[in-house]
């Protein structure tokens, strides 16, 4: 088995002359003249995020920090849901009375039978309307935000960055944990290039934006 490895590496070294110690310096000198850090004011940044999310067909609910549970209740009523799955470490204060919430730990079949999932996020990128999930105790294992047809996600204004480079540089800090970035509900344009919302991932994405 190792002979394939050896042979491919030899073919590469024959073709290129092999990597050299100057690699590190060469990498550091590569041109990166694109925009790395954004220039928008906080409120403009949030407007941009909302504009992008709505463009993807997501619905936004606005909340102050003390109102998260009220907005959760509002979203659930609007979507006609009686309860949701939640990650292990989701704050209890976010959960309104009168609905059922189930901590993760279910089988795929049970997750599939649920009405939806409520999670928080690690960060959001305004320019592309991306929500970044770091699959830890607050954002749950990957199956939980994937199998259900409905995803309700809480985003704090302080978690929003403007550009993709700002977002990716933050993501680097938890690159050892599975990461999913979400830009709107699942979609396809495979039929005549017409965008259709909702294939395998959640077909409905609601966002509670906490300012």
């Amino acid at each position, binding site marked *: 088995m190792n002979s394939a490895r050896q042979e491919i590496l030899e073919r590469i070294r024959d073709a290129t002359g092999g*990597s050299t110690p100057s690699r590190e310096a060469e990498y550091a000198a590569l041109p990166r003249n694109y925009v790395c850090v954004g220039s928008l004011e906080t409120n403009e940044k949030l407007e941009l995020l909302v504009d992008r999310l709505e463009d993807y067909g997501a619905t936004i609910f606005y909340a102050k920090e003390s109102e998260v549970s009220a907005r959760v209740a509002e979203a659930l009523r609007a979507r006609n849901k009686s309860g949701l799955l939640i990650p292990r470490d989701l704050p209890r204060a976010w959960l309104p009375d009168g609905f059922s919430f189930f901590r993760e730990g279910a089988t795929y079949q049970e997750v599939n039978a649920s009405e939806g999932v409520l999670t928080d996020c690690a960060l959001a990128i305004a320019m592309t309307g991306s929500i970044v999930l770091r699959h830890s105790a607050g954002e749950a294992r990957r199956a939980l935000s994937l199998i259900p047809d409905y995803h309700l996600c809480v985003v704090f204004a302080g978690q929003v960055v403007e550009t993709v480079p700002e977002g990716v540089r933050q993501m680097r800090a938890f690159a050892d944990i599975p990461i999913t970035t979400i*830009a709107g509900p699942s979609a396809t344009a*495979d039929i005549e290039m017409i965008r259709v919302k909702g294939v395998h991932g959640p077909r409905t994405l609601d966002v509670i934006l906490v300012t």
Partner: protein
Amino acid sequence: MSTFVGDAAKAPKFQTAAKKLVADTQVRHNVKRATDLIRKKRAKVVGEMADWEELREAGHHIKEHTLRHLDFYLEQFETNCTAAGGTVHWARDADEANGIIVGLVKAQQAKEVIKVKTMTSDEIKLNVALEAAGITPYETDLADLIVQLGEDKPSHIVVPALHRNRMEIRRIFLDKMNLGELGDQPEDLAAAARGYLREKFLRVPVAISGANFAIAETGSVCVVESEGNGRMCVSLPKVLISLVGIEKVIPTFQDLEIFLQTLPRSATGERMNPYNSIWTGVTLEDGPQEFHVVLLDNGRTKVLADREARETLDCIRCGACLNACPVYRQTGGHAYGSVYGGPIGAILTPQLQSMEHSQTLPYASSLCGACYEVCPVKINIPEILVHLRNKVVEQGDAPWEEKIAMKAAAYVLDSPERLERARNLGRIAQKPFVKNGVISHLPGGLDAWTAVRDLPAMPSESFREWWVKREREGHV
């Protein structure tokens, strides 16, 4: 052991295949409609990026740098992926990769696998190998599913069923999914795919994916997608196998900040594709507990060795060059006889096959440069096309008519006297064919040229003759 690219070695000449496809008005209509739409969307979202050229430039340089130090970055990826609980395999060619993957599936005693879109698996004909071993592969990308159920071939690297319209897709789904009835709206068809695949996602224990990026610094793999089938495949099964071409490695996690901007805008005309999955090895209590990466050469090191064509390997498979290409837009992808169609396919396929097959592909272009202009990593495709045409001629594979014509042209153009004589001869010879100043029909084999275009007749006086006369008459 063998290196191959799908069935490209057995494919007819591009010109032969193209002739047949151009006559298929339905395919032409479907391809034109879809590529028009996607180009418009791309132009809009690229236009709003003030730093688009800088992003292209940065992407190009990173790819160039990575290829220059590819041995280092592959070993770094292997080290980090292994440390995170993954297992890295190396495959010299298609057969070896298929053998490794079939072996891994068999070790699980699995009879079925779910697959998320990987053109590389089409390149190595993985599905054929799996089926031969009694394993049923389920394609989960909507377009791939349409192609698989329709017993068809992919015609586009991003949207493989681009040549099919909704009515055709509806018929395929009705036939193959045992559905009583089905609407013809894209929404109905997407819902049918959701219903058909859902229980497979929840049940099948082994998944096979490709990779958009393999990150050396962290050993992470990134899959870019839209439908959620990718997320299903990389995060639900017990075992995940990722087939990764050796050129897919990038040095650092931070480098994603470039490609995650240029890829979605170029590929589907979106600011961001709905989903990106990034994972590193195995994570306790989340997703596959066994993770394998198969690093594939299959001719890539030969491309690497050709300094003038090396940047072919920069490709991030966005498909923008297909949509922009005036040739692809007329023929669709099947004319290229390869899983990789369009301009990138025209340079990649013959090279992967050591220039032993598909030599007509470098001629499947008018060299207009539209592909270069839209390429998010600035691959100079027209230049590589010319370079490959040169190779075809050097190895003696040019058509005999062309060889004779080129020899004759070289002989004539070598001396002013011969050129003069040839011109005089031509002026007489053209007489029976000239009508209203143009030649519309040439005799014999030369009619291939005039079949689709007119040739202006040679004027009664050439520039040189006019110049000499002018001097003689004292206009100097």
